[in-house]
């Protein structure tokens, strides 16, 4: 019987059944990871998350939830090793590079001052690869924001502003999303960091028009001088954990 099936159809069925098996495996692994995580069983959870990412390397949800579990379990080097291997296997996955970059960022608050610089630099390398592979909102926003963390002496803030402006161009073409408010804050901060106070204020005001209840924008617009400096710089403290959770992208 089987010999009567057209070879192309046969190939298609094999592909589809294989894909379905992979998807099912990845989804199963992901569900098991969440279950283990709920039971505070990090060992099991990390292992299942990793299996899910291996099965679906470009799945942003799996990588994102994996990193969140890594932060809880403080096994930062494990994530770096894991993503290093995955991007070697899948160099064209923008999401893998993005999450690899975030894995470096996630380790920064627990690292020494010099190691923080090294981690931040390596994160930037991965963010650049991600944005080169897929020049989208999250890619430009992430790299742009990342540049802003660098002290003025390294002169990277103008690069950050350029990326954030590109992200804004993309954002303006998209329907309204909750996470868009982040870009108004970041771009305004970038203008402030590059001594363009008027543009900073205009950006925060534009953001407030679209997001009238946003406290971050309100605080910035209410502050000036040293107060504004303190407010903005407190957001770039390498000792503080940066929120690298991407779930806003698919839930908000």
């Amino acid at each position, binding site marked *: 019987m089987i010999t009567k099936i057209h070879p192309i159809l046969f190939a298609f069925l094999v592909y589809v059944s294989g894909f379905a098996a992979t998807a099912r495996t990845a989804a199963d692994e992901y569900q098991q990871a969440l279950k283990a995580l709920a039971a505070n069983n990090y060992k099991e959870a990390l292992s299942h998350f990793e299996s899910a990412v291996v099965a679906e390397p470009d799945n942003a949800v799996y990588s994102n939830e994996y990193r969140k579990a890594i932060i809880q379990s403080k096994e930062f080097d494990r994530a770096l090793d894991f993503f290093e291997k995955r991007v070697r296997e899948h160099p064209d996955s923008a999401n893998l590079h993005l999450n690899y970059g975030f894995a470096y960022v996630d380790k920064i608050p627990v*690292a*020494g*001052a*010099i*190691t923080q*610089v*090294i981690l931040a*630099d*390596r994160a930037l390398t991965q963010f650049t690869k991600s944005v080169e592979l897929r020049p989208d909102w999250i890619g430009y926003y992430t790299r742009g924001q990342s540049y802003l963390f660098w*002290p*003025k*002496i*390294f*002169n990277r803030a103008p690069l950050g502003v350029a990326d954030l402006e590109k992200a804004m161009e993309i954002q303006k073409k998209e329907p309204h999303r909750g996470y868009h408010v982040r870009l108004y804050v970041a771009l305004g901060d970038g203008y402030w960091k590059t001594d363009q106070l008027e543009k900073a204020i205009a950006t925060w005001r534009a953001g407030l028009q679209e997001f009238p209840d946003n406290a971050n924008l309100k605080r910035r617009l209410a502050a000036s001088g040293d107060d504004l400096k303190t407010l903005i710089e407190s957001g770039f*403290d*390498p*000792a503080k954990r940066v929120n690298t959770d991407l779930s806003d992208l698919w839930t908000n």
Partner: protein
Amino acid sequence: MDQLRKTRACLCLLTLLLSVPTWAADAEQQGIRFEEIAQKAGIRVPHHTRRFRGKNADVLHMFTSGGAAVAVGDYDGDGYEDLFVTDSDTGKPNHLFHNNGDMTFTDVAVEAGVAGGNDPKSVVSDALWFDYDNDGKLDLLVARFGTPILYHNEGSGKFKDVSSLSGLNKFGNTIAVIAFDYDNDGRLDLLFGNYFKPENLLDLKDPHVLPNNLDAATNGGGVTLWRNTGKATGIFEEVTDKAGLGKITGWTLDVGHGDFNNDGFQDIYLACDYGTDHIFLNNGNGTFREVTETATGWDTKKGMNVDVADYDNDGWLDIYVTNITDEYMKECNMLWHNNGNSTFSDVSKETGTCDTGWGWAAKFADFDNDGWQDLFVVNGLRSAGPESYVPLLLPVMTTPGLDITDVNNWPDIGNRTWSGYQKKRLFRNLGSGVFKEMAAAAGVDNTFDGRGIGVVDFDNDGKLDIVQTNADQPLLLYHNVTAAVGNWIELKLIGVKSNRDAIGARIKVEAGGLVQIREIDGGNGYAGQSSRRAHFGLGKASKIDHMEIRWPSGRVDVLKVPINSISYIKEGQGIVPR
């Protein structure tokens, strides 16, 4: 009539209260004031960092720019504290400034025989006064990137080099040294903090001498502990391993001591560059145990200074460590508050003492005699041209696989500035667990590249003065001219069964509602040894309610001393003439 008299008396009292402001308010209003008088005093001499030769000269010059040091001690016993000041370049003489008693000094280093030490193979890096043979005269140790020099005080202003008899024959790149009696046998021992591993940088065979990790380096010089044997030859014997300190391989920049757990034995704190500091408690049997993990936790900072004092007058010694806090590196200093249970909590942020730039020496001292110890901190690495060296360092830090231990992989600094032109910080202790920065108002906010601090009452007026050493820049002398100061006492202790310098003795003074403690230290603070006279500010208190001294021998003396004067106190004998 009686009523009238009573009314008049009340009015008089009210007038008196209103017309005489309280001492505290007066002190607050007038504040701490210093006048810089190094030129007038005849001590404004420049320091010179060692110049290296060859391809990597620039980098080694930068990495060894920490040797501008000062040691305070009354070497001739005339009642006025003198100064030994180091230089570091080839052939440059050290200075022994004899205090003339009128806030002027005379350099007598050559006549005294202590000017040397900067030979082509050695760099002078620190100095220490201590009476190693308990003969009542301060001897002098000159620490070097090399082997140390020990001078015996012969009296009459002359010193004799006894290095060959000292047993201190081990090469080390020493940057800090303290004297204390770790085994309470009545003789002062020596703890050396060594920066680089023991390779002679002036005759470099292998360029891999720089830190192998900038946050957790393990290839530094560690520490060496030398026990004073009391013998005429082989005065000191090395006991580093025996005492349990042999496993330290960090880049030690400063070492400090104090009885952290109030058990009568001296404990130690090691501040290390490029990685974790260490804290060791004394077991009381000639060994130490490391308690870093439970006492403070491990750190990745750039420890530069150890000073020890009870800043909050709770009866437990606290520890202040400077690190690097600058635009590009936000480490924050550490003020380790002693919790009284062999653990410490860092309260630098809460107290306002976190950010002092690229910190070097820091010393606690009560500059306005209000009963609360203030804090002076010097800072700044290299003040030069308008360009910064920092951006050039980025590839060194971030290039994968680059061997950062190789001096040849570090870019030349040229005329670039690196954390330079930083203002010094003076923190006034407000007595509420908080300090207020007031260096500018006090006149001490210079922007030199500070290294060491000596705190001392040069003119015996009860107000503490400051000497500040600077790398490749002149010495500064800050005369304390604060108008509104409280009452005070200064105590010079003389050990009998204990070591003669009484290092490790603890004094407790109860006055004006405060209970203060001081311990006599043997050189705490980076690149500086301050006076071994214990100074207490008493505020408005006109008498001391209770005073006791716990000597290193274990003896406790309870005695009374007059206020606003300097008292000499001998173990078991009370006040004695100078």
